[in-house]
């Protein structure tokens, strides 16, 4: 046992900043990280036991308790719930004979719920021992459990061999489908791979490349919308022994799965984009931070990197450019939504809890290991390649005056064709709904749970330019009209997630409650605002749903929603958005529930409240008080 741990530690040179990888290896080896392993790790890395434990306890996919031989992580995100999560969960529980959060007595099967795993277009989905199982039904769930009990291997549990495109690659071999529904300039398959590195880079200077990206007006596609060219320019000017390019592939916003498709089908563009960013900023370290849920891609992506090294597209003197040295490693996450925030992601890469850092300094000044670090989204990097190839002017011919280029939308929920749609900026939601085959629509969640719940009545009133603002991440706080005021809440990191709800859905009970559970589960716990407010706001919402609400409760929710803006990171600041945005756009739902004639309801029951103490001291409740 000790030897095994030591060999893992040696593999990472006893480097405490690689604690994530060390723990991942031990999880894969033993299924959990026990006290003994923790003490060996702490001693060898010369860090405290508490430091090891705080990292373990932060991530969903680490455990200090033994896990089962087969661990089923069933996704509980809203799209999963719309497509029968509850029934599938019950089927798993009944057939396995245990409830979620527990193992079967023989330690064969463990059942766990997990937040969005990026399979919203084919849910309910589960991860079983790192393998993805999509489109689950109660029948499939029972079959899987029976097959496990019958001693079948993991590979034999699969009921469909593989999905389309690279999902069928032997190293990937997953039943996941890409579901690409609309292609434009980014998803266009007619291009030569690594053309820019091979043929263009040697003809342009880093400054020229940065200028091209700046001229293209490309903005961060992860949602924060920071101008990419500017970020590269800042990064290139920061002094540092090394510079770092990080590709953020930790898409955890429920309803977002575009990075999954990009990494499956267009990973060469993503890696090429990282090389371009490195060339522009003279960076030498490259890291792709891949969320644990996409571990099934790991071997395949590593093979792509190996091929790039063979072709001299990574390594020393890349593509014959003297002194251009850059390589990419893949850092696996371990299940934490907040790690999508760039400074939390960097903390995680350094082997720590994924808690956002105070800013400034920004990552571009002091990031990974205090080196100047540029964190770009998957889609941003891939877009940069297209721009470098075809020029800023070409890119500026797409989109609208304020927002140029195209955007990948992850469309899911109540529609016939969930999947990835590449649209030009300025496309209206109504058009998206038509493309996706959505009927009888009641509401659309734009930008995931931290975004805005749009009432379909408002969609009809939207002009194209106004629609564009739904994705435009900042500068909306000053908007004047009543309609624009709603938009101030979509000042958020969104990856273009669109979740559609039809008229049969109970917005408050099904949708808003699900989103609040998500934020409660995923808060990193650092700021008291984000740690506590979502919980007490959800309790208030429950009170309203259960018919005990009063008008003041709605005002309380709105007022408390202002306080949460004091949280350190964007994720915490937007954690109340499901409630705030549904009050703004669906206020009648709240007003229908609250009592019109009462201005106070406390739900306090004195008889119930005194009974534990009374029964302990041997006393009856006598109603001698008024």
């Amino acid at each position, binding site marked *: 046992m000790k030897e095994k741990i030591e060999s893992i530690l040696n593999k990472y040179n006893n480097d405490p900043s690689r604690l994530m990888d060390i723990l991942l290896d031990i999880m894969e080896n033993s299924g959990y990280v026990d006290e003994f392993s923790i003490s060996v790790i702490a001693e060898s890395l010369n860090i405290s036991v508490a430091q090891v434990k705080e990292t373990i306890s932060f991530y969903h996919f680490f455990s200090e308790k033994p896990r089962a031989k087969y661990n089923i992580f069933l996704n509980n995100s809203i799209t999963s719930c719309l497509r029968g999560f509850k029934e599938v969960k019950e089927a798993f529980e009944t057939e396995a004979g245990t409830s979620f959060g527990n193992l079967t007595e023989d330690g064969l099967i463990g059942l766990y719920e997990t937040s969005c795993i990026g399979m919203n277009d084919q849910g309910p989905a589960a991860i079983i021992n790192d393998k993805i199982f999509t489109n689950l039904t109660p029948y499939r769930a029972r079959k899987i459990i029976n097959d496990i009990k019958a001693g079948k291997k993991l590979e034999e549990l699969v009921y469909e061999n593989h999905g389309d495109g690279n999902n069928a690659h032997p190293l990937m071999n997953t039943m996941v489908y890409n579901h690409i529904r609309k292609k434009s300039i980014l998803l266009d398959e007619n291009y030569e791979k690594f053309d820019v590195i091979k043929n263009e880079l040697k003809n342009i200077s880093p400054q020229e490349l940065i200028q091209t990206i700046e001229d293209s007006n490309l903005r961060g596609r992860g949602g924060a919308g920071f101008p990419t060219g500017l970020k590269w320019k800042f990064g290139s000017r920061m002094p540092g022994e090394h510079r770092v390019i990080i590709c953020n592939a930790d898409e955890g916003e429920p309803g977002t799965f575009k990075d999954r498709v990009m990494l499956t089908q267009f990973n060469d563009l993503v890696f090429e984009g990282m090389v371009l960013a490195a060339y522009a900023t003279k960076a030498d370290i490259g890291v792709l931070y891949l969320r644990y849920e996409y571990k099934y891609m790991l071997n395949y992506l590593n093979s792509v990197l190996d091929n790039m090294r063979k072709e001299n597209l990574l390594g020393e003197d890349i593509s014959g450019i003297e002194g251009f040295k850059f390589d990419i490693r893949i850092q696996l996450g371990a299940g934490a939504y907040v790690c999508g925030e760039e400074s939390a992601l960097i903390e995680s890469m350094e082997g720590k809890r994924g808690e956002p850092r105070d800013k400034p300094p920004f990552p571009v000044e002091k990031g990974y290991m205090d080196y100047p670090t540029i964190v770009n989204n998957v889609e941003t990097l891939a877009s940069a390649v297209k721009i470098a190839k075809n020029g800023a002017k070409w890119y500026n011919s797409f989109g609208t005056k304020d927002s140029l280029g195209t955007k990948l939308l992850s469309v899911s929920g109540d529609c016939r064709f969930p999947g990835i749609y590449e649209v030009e900026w300025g496309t209206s939601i109504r058009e998206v709904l038509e493309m996706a085959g959505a009927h009888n629509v009641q509401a659309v969640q734009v930008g995931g749970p931290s975004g805005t719940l749009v009432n379909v009545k408002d969609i009809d009133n939207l002009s194209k330019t106004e629609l564009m603002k739904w994705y435009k991440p900042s500068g909306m706080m000053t908007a004047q009209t009543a309609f624009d005021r709603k938009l101030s809440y979509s000042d958020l990191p969104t990856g273009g997630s669109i979740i559609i709800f039809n008229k049969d859905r109970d917005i408050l009970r099904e949708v808003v409650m699900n989103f609040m559970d998500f934020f409660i589960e995923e808060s990193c716990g650092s700021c008291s605002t984000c740690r506590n407010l979502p919980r007490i706001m959800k309790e208030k919402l429950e009170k309203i749903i259960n018919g005990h609400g009063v008008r003041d409760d709605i005002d309380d929710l709105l007022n408390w929603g202002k306080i949460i803006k004091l949280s350190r990171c964007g994720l915490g600041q937007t954690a109340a958005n499901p409630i705030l945005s549904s009050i703004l756009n669906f206020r009648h739902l709240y007003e229908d529930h609250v009592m019109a004639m009462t201005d106070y309801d406390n739900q306090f029951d004195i008889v119930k409240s*005194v*009974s534990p103490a*009374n029964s302990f001291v041997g*006393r009856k409740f006598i109603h001698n*008080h008024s």
Partner: protein
Amino acid sequence: MSKKIIATTSLAGCFGCHMSILDIDERILDLIELVEFNKSPVDDIKTFTKQVDIGIIEGGCCNSENVEVLKSFRDNCDILISLGECAIMGGLPAMRNGIPIEECIHEAYINGPTVKLNEEKILPNDAELPMLLDNVYPCHEIVKIDYFLPGCPPRADLIWDALVALITGNEMDLPYEVVKFD
């Protein structure tokens, strides 16, 4: 202008907030010009004798008597103010909320290091005694509270300013130092 009528009480509190009321020092003479006190420890009036304008509550609710008094304040006062940490959040008494009530009683009457004279291990259960609640509750979870004055205790100036604002109908000046969480 007729004098405003004020009532005050201390529930599960330490009377520190009432001390803070007295800390307005000689301004209490000005206050007497503006208000008259009804039910309050200040003048020892035990029951309401008329409808009151402003009720000031110190402390949260830990037993049935607290609840009864608080409800009588709500019934008899037009405006209720939660004064101080215990009224607003439960305060120190609420530290028992994480501990089962049976353990609390046992510690207080049987096991505690200061328990010397209870050889018969009697747990108080006389019908005259208030009944313990399962938790210590902040006042606004029992009745509607109109205003909250934070602090442990709230500063005398804050109490003074709040009362003057309420009585004169002017807006209150609340600089950051006054409302910051301690």
